[in-house]
């Protein structure tokens, strides 16, 4: 390899990481600004609370990263989270099923639904957007056929998961954080160190080339929706730990937060380029916006949505800038 191609390869690689770098800087600046402006902001627990409050979003966004890396999109995740909370609450609370049976069942249902959507997308060549939209309608509708009202959970397993504090020196985290971090680690290894992960990137780069190279396109494409389905079901389980209830209106708009986290984390929406850890940073940015707004006190919650929208705008422009330069 000549020095020239090596250098251009290096800058190209570096350019792909620019959005993630920007996100890291943004995170540090936001945290610094918060620490200067508000008393009690500068503490490890505030950072850990970010994870505690956003564990389910983190897991869902991890699944979404896989789908977006292949150039697809999954709009059903928020509804799948809601359906998972609903099924859990219904079976545990109203039918007395043991949680150890219900949780694997919910995960299986989520994975199955994801695989089914992936199968329809691949087999019939229908846009992912419309298939997952139908999945979203179906899942939300099923929530309401179970019950229109919220079902609260009083099962001891769930309440202990909600209340347990795992000490970390003087600070603490919840069991959900451990599960979410484990999910991130597993996804990171799967995406960056396995054949499946490389196929995901290849498929996002060019489906046609992947077919010609003999990669298992069908398995990969259906697989990422399965991963996303599993992650949203797991997100739903974590949400039942957090909310201690099942409700058809849980996680409304979560799909948008997940997409926003992936984009802010620097993953290209056209697929093929991005990092899982970028998504983690993206989730932390979204969580920090909420924290700042709650510390501010005078700002209303709808500012969160406006700020997220503005951030999305900036990062998408940044992506366009970087990709168009790369092409020319």
């Amino acid at each position: 390899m000549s020095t020239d191609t090596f250098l251009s390869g290096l800058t190209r690689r570096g350019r792909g990481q620019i959005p993630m770098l920007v996100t890291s800087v943004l995170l540090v600046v936001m945290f610094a600004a918060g620490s200067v402006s508000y008393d009690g902001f500068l503490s490890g627990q505030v950072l850990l609370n970010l994870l505690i409050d956003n564990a389910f979003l983190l897991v869902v966004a991890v699944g979404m990263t896989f789908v977006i890396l292949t150039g697809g999109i999954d709009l059903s995740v928020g509804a799948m989270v809601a359906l998972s909370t609903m099924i859990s609450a219904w079976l545990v609370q109203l039918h007395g099923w043991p949680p150890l049976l219900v949780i694997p069942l919910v995960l299986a249902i989520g994975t199955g639904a994801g695989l089914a959507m992936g199968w329809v997308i691949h087999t019939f060549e229908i846009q992912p957007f419309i298939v997952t939209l139908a999945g979203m309608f179906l899942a939300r509708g099923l929530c309401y056929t179970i019950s229109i009202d919220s079902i609260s959970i009083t099962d001891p397993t769930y309440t202990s998961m909600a209340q347990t504090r795992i000490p970390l020196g003087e600070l603490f985290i919840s069991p959900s954080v451990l599960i979410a971090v484990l999910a991130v680690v597993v996804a990171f290894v799967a995406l960056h160190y396995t054949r499946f992960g490389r196929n995901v990137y290849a498929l996002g780069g060019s489906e046609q080339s992947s077919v010609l190279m003999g990669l298992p396109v069908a398995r990969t494409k259906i697989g990422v929706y399965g991963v996303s389905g599993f992650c949203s079901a797991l997100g739903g389980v974590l949400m039942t730990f957090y909310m201690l209830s099942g409700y058809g209106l849980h996680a409304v708009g979560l799909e948008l937060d997940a997409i926003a986290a992936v984009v802010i984390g620097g993953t290209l929406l056209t697929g093929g380029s991005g990092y899982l850890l970028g998504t983690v940073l993206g989730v932390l940015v979204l969580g920090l916006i909420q924290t700042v707004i709650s510390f501010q006190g005078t700002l209303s919650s709808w500012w969160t949505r406006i700020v997220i929208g503005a951030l999305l705008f900036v990062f998408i422009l940044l992506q366009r800038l970087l990709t168009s330069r790369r092409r020319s």
Partner: protein
Amino acid sequence: MTGHRLFWPAVVLIALLLANLAFTPDFFAIRVRDGHLYGSLIDILHFGSPLILVALGMTLVIATGGIDLSVGSTVAIAAALACLHISESDDPGSLGTVLTAVAIALGVALLLGAANGVLVARIGVQPIIATLILMVAGRGVAQLITDGQIITVTSEPFKLIGGGYWLTVPFSILLAAAVVLLASMLTRRTALGLLLESVGGNPVASRLVGIRAAGLIGLVYVVSALCAALAGLMISSNVSAADGNNAGLWIELDAILAVVVGGTSLNGGRFSLGGTVLGALVIQTLSTTVYTIGIPPETTLVFKAVVVITVCLVQSPVFRAKAARRRSGARHGNRPVASKKLEVGA
């Protein structure tokens, strides 16, 4: 006959209407009371008018191969602006106040649509993402305008837009009909429709033959936003209030559904305004049916999901090819189908 593109949407609509007859025997009855038309059919048209408008704009966007997710937020913003202006004015009942309110709502919608158009046509962001920004931020903006409250207004001229009657017919029906008529004249009596389909079919080729693709794409997002704003005015006028959180919630999905049911392909390149109107009426009838039969309204979503999937499967060339092969009984094993290149009339 079955080959006509409006055939299947019409069949579905008629079947749905007839199904209602089984539950409500006087479903088709239309009465005149106090000089106003009443009846289930009128209700469907009346409550379906905002959806028809939004779906109309969406059809033009989809014809160019795009999608507009921000219409729901635009509905909420337009409703919030209009109601805020009327509620803060000294004379809420005057025609001038209402006209100013309508102008403000439409003007802001014009800007929002133009912003979407610039993002898609000039900067080259995927339509679903470009409009996602406004979809996320727009609801926040709407709540900012209403200060998180539900603004109620009492204004006779404003009430007319969505809840009033004119010549015994609900005004919203007339308004929607006028817009549909105008749009179909512009797209079918002039070359505009053809140009839109050309851009949707292949933007690069269109640009090379001298069609201003960017301008046309920008235009459809503006039209879509204006239609959404008009729908927002209708919705808020009908309930005499603006709710930043719930006005137009999920209407973008219903609109996309209406377009798809109407036979317009999501891939762009062809569209049918008549199909969209039929599609919107199918969805409104579906909602009405669910209400009248007494199923919890929230479960409408399940029916909608089934409709979306069925319609998409029927539209999918691969599905058609597979179904046709099965019907003819000829088994070709796993021979790959070059389906993306198959042109199948929708």
